[in-house]
């Protein structure tokens, strides 16, 4: 709540002409915006370019921010649409569809199982993090928004243009996939 009030105070300063105040908003949200973009494009350079575009777009439209939602929700909506717009122009940005990508994680992990020392180095946390990155972009985005960016199902719905019910189903599906991966890997590990 305090963060939201700070955001609104900063926005007022920027709208009154103190452009440098915008840096505080960039600092506060850059990692979240960058992560959301990375979930879609999986390329750091491109993600930086798109994330920068998100902040410039947000700056230009700052007068349109009414404060009806959290600034973060509004900003992530711009990030979501910027990614979708990019992917529409460059559909080759995502190489594999979600399920194939997911299969690849499991297979990669299975292969590494032949080398016990490599497997030991990989913690479950790393695997899960990798698995989240390999979820379909939209699902990974929802997981990130829910767990990391502290957005409610309603807010995620506003960002992604889905109904809260659909968001709930997508989140359920993503969690099931993550659980499946963990179970698959742990059963492989126990068999060796």
């Amino acid at each position, binding site marked *: 709540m305090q963060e939201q009030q700070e955001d609104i105070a900063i926005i007022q300063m920027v709208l009154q002409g103190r452009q440098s105040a915008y840096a505080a908003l960039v600092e506060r949200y850059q990692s*979240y915006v960058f992560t959301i973009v990375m979930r879609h494009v999986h390329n750091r350079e491109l*993600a*930086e370019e798109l994330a*920068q575009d998100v902040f410039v777009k947000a700056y230009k*439209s*700052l007068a349109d921010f009414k404060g009806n939602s959290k600034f973060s929700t509004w900003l992530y909506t711009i990030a979501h649409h910027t990614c979708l717009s990019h992917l529409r122009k460059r559909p080759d940005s995502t190489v594999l569809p979600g399920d194939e990508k997911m299969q690849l994680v499991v297979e990669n992990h299975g292969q590494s199982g032949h080398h016990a020392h490599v497997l030991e180095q990989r913690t479950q946390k790393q695997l899960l993090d990798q698995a989240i990155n390999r979820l379909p972009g939209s699902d990974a985005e929802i997981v990130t928004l829910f767990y*990391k960016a502290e957005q409610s199902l309603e807010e995620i719905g506003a960002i992604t243009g889905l109904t809260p019910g659909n968001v709930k189903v997508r989140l359920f599906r993503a969690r099931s996939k993550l*659980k499946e991966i963990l179970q698959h890997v742990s059963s492989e590990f126990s068999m060796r």
Partner: protein
Amino acid sequence: MEQQDIEMQLWEYIDGLGTETERAAIARLIATDVQWQEQYSSFVALNAEIESAIETEQPSLRFSKNVMEAVAQAHIAPATNRYINPSVLKGIAAFFAISIVAVLVYAVGSVQWNLSANSFLPKVKPVDFHFGKHFNSTIVWIVFAINIILGLAFVDMRLRKKAVSDNS
């Protein structure tokens, strides 16, 4: 109850969703049913793992500097409601709504609902409208001319207003 329903309800419970009554019912099932209890424990563990595993990606150190350099060359656009009059939008929406309703009323009104023995489809009266006859008439051209003059007057008015606001 199917496995998927149980899982869905447990996730809703963990996420703090649902009404008090629903939550109380699920809490009771977790306390009494072994299947629900086991599933709940595994989901709580998975939830904690996901929470701890997700880390935000960090952009390069120059990122915020790059953004501020790009922002320095940008201008904040005036709020949309300052240059788009909501009543104009409502007027356009009303025009289309009325047009659609009029067409529907005309179409429904022209349908012959009596079924004949050899046809189950309602007969529609053919529209008796001669475009050439109406669009060649002088009246239509006069209406077009008036619309063009009104349009130009409207554009002129808007541009004058804009010039005044820019100067001020």
